[in-house]
């Protein structure tokens, strides 16, 4: 049985304006989490917000059973969460969802992340046992950028861009990535971030013939696969399924069938 957990918050800190790092102690999640999975958090008691908020797992410390998430304060839920203090209880379910496909076959991996999409990629870099790991991460500007030290630690090559050029390359991270993919034969690409960015990454990977995984976002109800709120369009690829359907796509659940999907399954790259 999967538990609904009530865990102790160890740390909750504003890293840069409106980006918070929260660490909580959870044996169950720390021991079971895989990169790409998320936790679903009740951000306040009572009805001030009701639905749980999905947040990717950014790091786990399996020795001490610490789980780290990094989140942006956006609306009501994350605002409440931002005020949690050390010692408070976190009502959390997880780990949830399909993780990134990690295999020893992939010797040379790349991650491409933008904004809040970088957090699950950090966990992936850390967990990946290969020796060649390249990270492309993009930020709006210098004020937004976080966890650079951690990315430096777990990636062999790190490329950074900011929209305004206040740090690293000025422009889109996809420019750097398209450059990278031209020079380097990656075995797999993992991407998470704004849809427009992921679309470019999927296209470039596809053209280069490299498999690619995307991590999607959608508004969720249950977070466990029961309510069908969180769907996205996914191409029908298997021949048997194609035969049974006159459609080229079907809706899949981000919370259960995803959040990680193969780039080429992601219907028309982006949700039209």
């Amino acid at each position, binding site marked *: *049985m999967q*538990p609904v957990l009530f865990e102790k918050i160890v740390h909750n800190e504003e890293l840069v304006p409106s980006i918070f790092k929260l660490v909580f102690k959870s044996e169950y999640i720390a021991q079971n989490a895989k990169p790409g999975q998320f936790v679903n958090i009740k951000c306040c008691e009572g*009805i001030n917000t009701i639905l749980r908020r999905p947040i990717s797992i950014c790091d786990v410390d399996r020795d001490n059973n610490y789980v780290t998430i990094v989140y942006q304060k956006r609306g009501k839920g994350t605002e409440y969460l931002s005020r949690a203090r050390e010692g408070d209880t976190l009502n959390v379910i997880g780990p949830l969802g399909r993780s990134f496909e990690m295999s020893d076959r992939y010797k040379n991996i790349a991650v491409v992340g933008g904004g809040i999409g970088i957090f699950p990629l950090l966990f992936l870099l850390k967990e990946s046992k290969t020796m060649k790991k390249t990270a492309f991460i993009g930020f709006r500007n210098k004020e937004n950028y976080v966890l650079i030290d951690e990315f430096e630690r777990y990636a062999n090559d790190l490329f950074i861009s900011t929209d305004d050029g206040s740090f690293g390359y000025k422009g889109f991270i996809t420019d750097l990535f398209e450059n990278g993919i031209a020079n380097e034969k990656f075995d797999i690409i993992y991407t998470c971030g704004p849809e427009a960015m992921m679309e470019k990454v999927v296209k470039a990977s596809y053209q280069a013939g490299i498999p690619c995984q995307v991590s999607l976002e959608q508004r969720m109800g249950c977070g466990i696969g*029961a309510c*069908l709120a969180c769907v*996205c369009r996914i191409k029908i690829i298997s021949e048997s399924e194609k035969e049974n359907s006159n459609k080229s796509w079907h809706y899949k659940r981000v919370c259960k069938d995803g959040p990680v999907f193969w780039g080429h399954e992601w219907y028309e790259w982006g949700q039209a």
Partner: protein
Amino acid sequence: MTDSLLKVEIAGIKLKNPVIAASGTFGFGREYSEFIDLNKLGGISVKGLTLKPREGNKPPRIAETPAGILNSIGLQNPGVDAFIKDELPFLKQFDTAIIANIAGNTIEEYCELAEKLSDTDIDAFELNVSCPNVKEGCVAFGNTVEGISKITKQVKKYCKKPLIVKLTPNVTDIKEIAMAAEANGADAISLINTILGMAIDIHKRRPILANNFGGLSGPAVKPIAVRMTYEVASVVKIPVIGMGGITSGDDAIEFFLAGASAVMVGTWNFVNPYACIEIINQIKSYLTMYKYKSIYDIIGKIQLN
């Protein structure tokens, strides 16, 4: 382990307790079976079934509102055949009543659904004539006396299992709709389905839901649901299953006092996967605290001022 305190009978179906997972919020039980023991539930009303598989509406399909949610799933489901083949056998492993929630675009579709499901192991039908999220049919049958009369009468002919008719709250007078369902053969009434609502993203200046409108559920609707449960229970003789915003045993007790013989729990499962189980225990504590011998001791026992 059944407990006579909580046993109820609805239209001939014996429930070990009066707490049923509400249609559309519990899928076909698989996901919640990873969190709770489905054997402990009074019943499960499955996701609305249609004759053919349906993809449902575009996402986003859910929005949070004050103490509520709007949903516009649009009846995504694998179709009745896949349900019978793939889902029902799973559900029947558990000792709990299985209610088939059915929806169609035409009365004929409803009848065909009833016919197909009558020979399966389901325990009852729940006629969904109240889903606000699909363009054709469905809710149109549910909001007039003529509509509800006609569909109930027709579908009833094909039902070899008890027929629960689920009412929409989006009507001027729910009493007359309930009486029409009763008069035309409904074995029980369930209510309320969701209330039509809208939420707007003021920065994008568009509705949050891709479908523009959605159905409101959750705590916000509770006082409306309790009122309608009372109204309906006071005019029909058949059992009433109440729902709308139940989050706790206390909430459930309001519905029992108002006249419900059982309750359904929907939205709150999302917030707390243990919701149904906790509510069962809380109802039991309440009955025990007041030394009641049976849930029947409180059903409809509200005293008006």
